[in-house]
């Protein structure tokens, strides 16, 4: 057994109530399997996710952060996810500039019917994080 397999990462996963959370529920009701590394946090819209939450989660021990929302054009609040997309792009840049591992962040659109996609993406992302190993930036203090 490779050492990798012992490591169960902690992946903070933001889900918007209307599409992605429903998609994640569907993965469960369809009994699709994906790693328990995924720790869901429900918000009403992906646009509620302050980039600071992602930064904090990361600095406080999350090995990866997955941000999900409705597909472009499908946001329950018209255009929230367009803002999400822009904020995410900026945050990635900030991570790069600070020399943080921006590969630990991922944005993905999951609709209410995409249980399968959710299971696939969470599995892939977990694998990727396993390859990157534990997040060593984690501090003791929660900002």
């Amino acid at each position, binding site marked *: 057994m490779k050492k990798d397999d012992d490591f169960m990462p902690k992946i*903070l996963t933001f889900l918007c109530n209307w599409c992605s959370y429903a998609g994640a*529920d569907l*993965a469960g009701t369809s009994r699709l399997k994906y790693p*328990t590394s995924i720790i*869901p*946090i429900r918000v009403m819209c992906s646009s*509620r996710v302050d980039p600071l939450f992602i930064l904090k989660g990361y600095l406080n021990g999350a090995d990866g952060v997955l941000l999900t929302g409705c597909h472009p054009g499908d946001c329950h*609040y*018209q255009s929230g996810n367009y803002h999400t997309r822009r904020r995410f792009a900026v945050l990635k840049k900030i991570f790069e500039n600070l020399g943080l591992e921006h590969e630990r962040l991922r944005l993905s659109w999951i609709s209410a019917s995409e249980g399968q996609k959710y299971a696939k993406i969470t599995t892939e992302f977990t694998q990727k994080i396993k390859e990157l190993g534990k997040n060593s930036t984690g501090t003791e203090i929660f900002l």
Partner: protein
Amino acid sequence: MDRKIGVYICECGPNIAEKIDIDKVIKAVSPLDDVSIATRYKLLCSEQGKKFLEEQIKKNGLTHLVVAACSPRDHQHTFMTICENAGINPFLFQLANIREQCAWITENKEEATNKAIRLTKAAIGRVRYHVPLEKKEIESNPDVLVIGGGIAGMEASLHLASPQRKIYLVEKTSQLGGVVTNLEKTFPDMQSCPKIIQDKIDQVTNNDNIKVYTNCEVTEILGFFGNFEGTVTQNNNEDKTTVGFNVGAVVLATGCALFDPTDDPNYGYGKFDNVITALEFEKMNLAGNIRLKNGKTPKSVAIIHCVGRDKKGYCSEICCMYSIKFVRYLQNKIPEIKISNFYTDLCLPEKSYQKFYEQSRGKKNDFIRIDSIKITNPGNKLTITHNDEQGNKKSHGVDMVILSPALEPSVDTKKLAEFTRISQDDEGFFAEEHEKLGPVTTSTEGVYIAGCAQGPKSIQNTLIQAEAVAGKILSSLIPGKKIEPEVKVAHISESFCIGCKTCLTVCSYGVITFDSTKKVCVANEVICRGCGNCVAACPSGAASLKHFTFNQLRQELKEAVL
């Protein structure tokens, strides 16, 4: 205040019990601060389970409740009601989803148990910082303002009017009916139209609960869902009398206008005799008088589809069909007539349209695909020059040309969109809330769109929208029933706000306004939808979202990754 948090873990029969070591979860969360009891139960959403929970809250004097069970999409509401029944505020509750997103995603019981512990701890971490929220109830007015007295506005009015619900129907022109009053027959069934529309007009004018204002325009709309104030002004030039009234909802049914073919010199419209628009032809046909300028009956007619389509950049959906209807009119009334249809694309959607087209084809009736067209008038004979599909130049002489122009937004669309704080789409029509998910609602709650005001469409689809609007209003604006605005709304702290207006620019619902005296932004909580976009955008931390506050989410995240 001392917190006493009760944590209840549902077995969900074997669903959770077999996949998660519930006792281990109980053991992990019991020692946490403020947790006064942590225990398990077979089926919490059963009648017995609900009774059990209610008694537990009362017996143990709990102040907060955490349930670890299924998705909030299943039973959040159930448990919030239990809280209310047991006398604690329903927002002092948090549900941890340990079924759909935990028990059911893995065969590894140990991993599932660890995740369930995390999720339950996160819920406990969060619920500590929940604050009671009060459901607001506001009086609502069931009456409705309908703008536009075409078939859409009339149909919506007829469905909505009742002794408990007055309808104010405002029409700009002197008569009701809109475009349909000009039609002799309708595609695709070729039914006679005047009687149908006259019946509708009579039903509307004879309905005691519909007050019709003809020659009138709406000049102001203020307020929000349940409580709008509308002002209507009479168009008579001399004295502009105004009336104002309160309504709970507004229906925009102002129809659409025809693209003006004088905008494209290739069509010769306005320059040459006997080049007319589709609407002018409908009127001529209805009057039973298809004649040339010189009084003679035309022997040959060209019908040009897609006029202005390129300029507008969209297909108007119905022009092909009414053009084919014109073929029927002409064949009926002038049996020997020669008809040529010029089109760039034939649009024949719907289940019966293809058949309608096929049955309209005949020896004296051509359908010619073109990619450019020009109408000239050498020697007083209308000549059509066009390129066919192979790129060859061809010309035809005809007596009469009927232009079928694109449909465009009616002139007042912009003004009314501003009054009601809704947006216009790229084509200038009123924008629906969502193309797929909210086809007749708009970004302002309580403002609806029906008919061609939303985009070109047939009478059938117009009626479908009018009925949908009526259904929406009937089910949400019930006479005597108070409305409950969203509780989890944005709030802006006056002392922290630096007046940068970032929040104002991201909000899709016009909730936020700038107070220029205080130099701060203010959110109108009654119309906020609670998405939280403004909160994530605010650089100063002045904006917050109830029940999804910075601190509540921070605590949840902290426990989740610890």
